[in-house]
């Protein structure tokens, strides 16, 4: 089996004079949780929609599960799952029946009752979609996206409207799916979500890939200077250093016991991310 789920070379797409995607290169191996981060209008949704076969590209080569999404047919669609970003209406039948109905579209679906259970809707299995809360409806979307046992699952801002606990449950589900071999492409606004889930994060801004790395290493984060702060001589002290352990040791030797207000700070993913997209803020249309 081909070990590459997605391969993109020099992908481009313009709307009028706006270059929504201006030369993107990517390779996503099978089984990875791959996350797209970027401001609104950065080109990440357009990129993902081209990968899903929903939008046509202007140029570049795209292979998703070995096929060109622009031409792929039913058999290919049966191998992917899509959870759209926007709220998408469903027929007005109870959750269980709806999931069962969608299962019928696929050659080898998961067990509908088990899927309803896994997304946490077992108690709402007999309810109509329109009485579900926003978060519950999102989970129904996820159920419909995974019912075909996709090899590749696209999740576009899946946890919008979730409370923190629901989000954590959802993360468990995604890890579970990835553990079962499903490749996941996750678009999100939540940096902590990308950090918690993604094997690799791709920051897109101005239609280009600004950085592509593991969350820990993104934008040189692991190597970045740390800031050591503490309280001494009646005021706050601060040192930026490449060797925070040594600095802490030196400071500690001047105190008998605890160093007051000691912190060692490395840049958060958010700080790195904001730094990466800052250059594009002005050129990206709202």
């Amino acid at each position, binding site marked *: 089996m081909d070990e590459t789920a997605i391969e993109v070379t020099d992908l481009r797409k313009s709307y009028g004079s706006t270059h929504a995607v201006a030369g993107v290169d990517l390779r996503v191996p099978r089984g990875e949780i791959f996350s797209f981060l970027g401001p609104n209008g950065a080109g990440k949704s357009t990129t993902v929609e081209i990968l899903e076969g929903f939008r046509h590209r202007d140029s570049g080569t795209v292979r998703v599960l070995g096929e060109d999404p622009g031409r792929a047919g039913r058999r290919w669609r049966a191998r992917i799952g899509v959870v759209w970003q926007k709220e998408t209406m469903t*027929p007005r039948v109870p959750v269980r029946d709806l999931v069962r109905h969608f299962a019928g579209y696929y050659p080898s679906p998961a067990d509908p009752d088990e899927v309803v259970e896994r997304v946490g809707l077992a108690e709402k299995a007999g309810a109509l979609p329109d009485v579900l809360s926003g978060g519950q409806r999102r989970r129904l979307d996820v159920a419909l996206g995974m019912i075909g046992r996709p090899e590749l699952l696209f999740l576009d801002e899946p946890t919008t409207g979730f409370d923190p606990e629901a989000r954590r449950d959802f993360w468990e589900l995604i890890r579970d799916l990835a553990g079962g071999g499903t490749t996941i492409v996750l678009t999100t606004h939540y940096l902590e979500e990308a950090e918690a889930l993604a094997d690799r994060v791709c920051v897109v801004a101005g239609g280009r890939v600004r950085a592509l790395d593991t969350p820990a290493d993104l934008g040189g984060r692991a190597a970045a200077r740390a800031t050591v702060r503490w309280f001494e001589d009646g005021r706050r002290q601060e040192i930026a250093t490449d060797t925070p352990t040594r600095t802490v040791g030196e400071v500690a030797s001047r105190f008998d016991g605890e160093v007051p207000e000691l912190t060692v700070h490395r840049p958060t993913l958010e700080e790195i991310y904001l730094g990466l997209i800052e250059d594009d803020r002005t050129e990206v249309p709202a």
Partner: protein
Amino acid sequence: MNAPTTNPTNPARPAPERSTRLPGTFRLGLSRGIVEIRSFVREWESMIFTFSMPALILLFFAVIFDDMFDINMSAVDYYLPGLIAMGLMSVSFQTLGVAVATERDQGGLRRLRGTPLPPASYFIGKTVLVLFLAVGQVALLLGVAVLFFDAALPSGAESWVTVGWVFVLGTVACALLGLAASSLARTAQAASAVIIVPFLLLQFTSGIFVPVPALPEWVFNGAALFPLLWMAQGLRAGFFPDEMASMEVSGSWDLPLVALALGTWCVVGLVVTLATFRWKTRKDG
């Protein structure tokens, strides 16, 4: 890979012996049809305003206009064929036009594009829904007319055959017209205006409420471009006694012309639908 998670129900890779046989297009279409019907029946607003309206109007007219006719025909007999035509157009043109525009605007069609459902199955599902509603519509109107007002039904096999083909051609033509019109509405809210207003105009100009000979010629010529007028005329041919043909504009039922007009609309509707049908909204690019 992330921190490995243990999950007993999930082996490291998807089950090896996956079936790759895609479900059949027709079977999926029937499955869609059943879901469409179940979904429609739950919308009580559409049940009352779309589905029951012609029967309610028949009820009112039959009561209000009772004994006001000097044409040797009861009010219920006079209005029945026209209201059946209106009911058929309502469950085909209006139901499909509004529903498809709404599904397109609110992402229902988009969601289907992310699945292996063949487009043909979607349309088969809509056909099943419209047929179900059309048969129900005729049954409801005939039921009200016969049970409450002892209305006269078509006499003889030939009349029933006429009713049958007008029913099929008219419903298909209006359904395709509805699919085509759904593309004109940019949003779900706009759909009501784009679909319902023209339909209302046609009702008043196609001989449903006002006899066709009473219309000014230019109104008649305009309405004659659309299928509703011909459906109503074809159904009158089936329901009315033959001598009533003298009350038509040309003095006869003109059944070949009815068939030609409705058949043309089926072809035009199909071509326009194939050319304009979109799974996305304009803003989806």
